[in-house]
């Protein structure tokens, strides 16, 4: 049974979400603040975490998300009542969240998003046994491993899914809309800033020089393209 951790200081929201998720056969654990949430995360190892951003105590949602990202790739969904600008959302995504929802959100949409997020992280494991290795960068789609210069790199489920989609179409441009649809799902096609944030994070993790990318190239106003490099790339190491 999929285990979901909800960290939110609003009891009504916590309880309602938990109740709905339980009805849908999820195992749910709840925490009322960041510190308690982090403890629960370490002890219970949930499959998905739902985080509120503004919470009392020392650990807010953003910090908690970063702490989780230090040790795990568990999908994280953020719920915020505070976001005003796109920058607020980007800040959340950069902290490592896979999903950023603005309160209030209705149960139906919430559940759909949870399922999409889980699908995203699980689908990857079922991908074909395709992979890539040029000596500098190696990607094992089956085992969900990415190595740069032999060193293992942690990718979040969304980042990994994004990389996998780009790799499958390597050499061809994948436009924004397709990317959103394939990585995030049908219901995300209008959230244009998602790819931008994730591409830049991916580049930071796998490119030799993130400001002059060689693997993930931007096709201005169209989309992105994964470019395989000759094996001689090893010489760069």
């Amino acid at each position, binding site marked *: 049974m999929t285990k979901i951790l909800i960290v939110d200081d609003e009891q*009504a929201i916590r309880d309602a979400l938990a109740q*709905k998720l339980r009805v849908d056969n999820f195992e749910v654990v709840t925490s009322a603040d960041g510190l308690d949430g982090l403890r629960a995360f370490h002890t219970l190892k949930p499959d998905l975490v739902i985080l509120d951003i503004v919470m009392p105590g020392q650990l807010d949602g953003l910090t908690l998300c970063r702490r989780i990202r230090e040790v795990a790739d568990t999908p994280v969904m953020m719920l915020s009542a505070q976001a005003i600008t796109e920058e607020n959302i980007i800040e959340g995504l950069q902290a490592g969240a896979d999903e950023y929802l603005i309160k*209030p959100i209705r149960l139906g949409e919430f559940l759909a998003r949870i399922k999409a997020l889980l699908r995203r992280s699980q689908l990857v494991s079922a991908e074909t046994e395709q992979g890539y290795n040029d000596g500098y960068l190696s990607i094992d789609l089956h085992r969900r491993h990415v190595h740069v210069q032999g060193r293992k790199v942690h990718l979040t489920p969304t980042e990994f899914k994004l990389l996998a989609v780009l790799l499958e179409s390597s050499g061809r441009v994948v436009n924004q809309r397709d990317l959103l649809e394939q990585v995030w799902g049908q219901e995300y096609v209008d959230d244009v800033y998602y790819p931008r944030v994730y591409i830049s994070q991916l580049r930071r993790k796998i490119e030799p020089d993130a400001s002059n990318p060689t693997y993930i190239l931007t096709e201005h106003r169209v989309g992105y393209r994964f470019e395989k490099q000759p094996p001689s790339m090893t010489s760069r190491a």
Partner: protein
Amino acid sequence: MLDLRAVSLVVNGLILALALGIMLILLWHDRQKRSVQFSAVFLMLVIVWNSGGLILQLSQLVTTNAGLRQLAEGIFDLGLAGSAVSLYVLVTHMSGAHSARFRTLAFASLSLVTAQHVVLIVSSSTQNLGSLTEVADTADVLTRRVLSLNLLYFTIYGSLALFIVWRYRRKIRNRWAIIGTTIFVVGQGMTFLNPEIALVAFSTNVSSVGCLCIGLAVLRYEIILPLAERNTQVESLHKVSIAISGQLSLDTVLNEIATQAAGWLNADGVAIFLRDQDELELVTTHQLPAEMLKQRARWGRGMVGQVAQTQRSALVENYGRDWQGEADLPLAKETFGAAIAVPLNYGEQVTGVLLVIAGRQGRLFNPNDVYLLELLSTQAAVAIANSRYVTQLKELDRVKSEMVRMASHDLKNPLMGAMLYLDIARDAVSSANLTEALDIIDQQLERMNRIIRGVLDLEKMRMLSPGSGLCDGGKLVVRVYDQMIRLAADSKIRLAISRSQDKAMFQGDAEQIERALVNLVENAIKFTPREGEVDLGVTVADGEVTFIVRDTGVGIPPDIQALVFERFYRGQQAGIEHVTGSGLGLSIVKTVVENHGGRVWLESQEGRGTTFFIALKQAEVSQGEIAI
């Protein structure tokens, strides 16, 4: 000899007429001023002296009447002694080297000299009245006179005057006054060298030239220079106004004011104090040690403190000598010469004090300088008040934004809680009545949500910069059309689109303008009955890109057309009862358009429809630029 005397007489007469003219001009200009009063007295006594000499010479030329000659000599003596004394008084006043009761003393001594001579004249006239006795030797008479008190007066006051103009030449700041004084004293001295009438004539000529120089110097100082400076002052005021209206920082404006004040008054230092509760803090200095900054002056103490308390300007000619109160700055009494302090008044409030000082060897200030500084101080007070208001407004705006965020956060959480439980309840309820009730609750919750979102959107639009991307109005209307076509179809409204042939390019943030257009089209659809029409178009004319959203809806009554852009305004007329919304859509449109420096307006006829216009400045398109 006769010819020379005649020439001398004519020259003297002309010079005196000129001096008299100057005196009249000065008195006409401002007879309240001490320098004018002193110079008038001086010029008058010189005229008296010269008239005496003139009559003396005439009497020698035309008549031998001893009585007339004695009267002439009396007048001559009075003028000679009086002018020596009054010259001393004048230069002492010009140099500022006088003490506090100087005016009284000066008038007292002048009156004494005059009285003494009048008595002498009257007594000698009485003795000789009607007498036609010839005076055989004119030289004798003169010798007698010369040896009298006149030499004493001349020696004391003439040399004092010379000493003062030399000692305080920097303060007098007037070369012609110094030259004139020197010529005048030398001229008077010549009278005593050889007591011949010819020499007397010559000496009065020389002194008249000196007197003319002094008269001109006073004229220049009192009338010509202030007029000439008016230009510079206007220019300075202009600079200060620009600094203020340019919304430069308070520091920059105060520095500009200090610099202009120093330049205007040829001052050696300027300090601007700002009020901080019951103290005054030195915030700007010009040509004063930087260590003085942050010095504090106590309210009511020191010159600055007193000026702030009384709200009246103060002028001291010698800070060390005349200022009896607490020193305003360290070593002020030892180093300051003249000083002016002017309050910076805004309304009833004193916001600070402008202090302008001259060094001990620096120039003297006069009431005209105080007047000039008051002009500057008004500007400074406005700048200070502006800056304080701007700071307060910014703080208020920050607090307001913070409040909006907090309130929205605090409202969204309970709202979401309610919505979630409503959804749960809906799953569990099957009764038709209850479902209807839940629908109503749902609608109300959604309405609350729209209002909160509207407030946040408005806040977001206000915070966003308009952006400088190149946007294509044509593409924009297509995007808006794509977004709205479903809503239009659901509402049975025909949505049409029209685009101009020209490229409708403008600078800005395409997303924000798109949002504004979406709001307008959404509104148009909402307020148009079924089977109506909504047109969305863009035209280019007169350097403007104009978006037009026209509907065949209920229209807006003329009396509320001006109100529709206001926050939370919602129309109440018949036919729109079913329309829901936050009441913020149009105020978001207005905010976005104003952020872009554009205009938004509407034309409407009740029952026939409304047209909204958004006009933005058309952008020049260079090759290679890509529009969004």
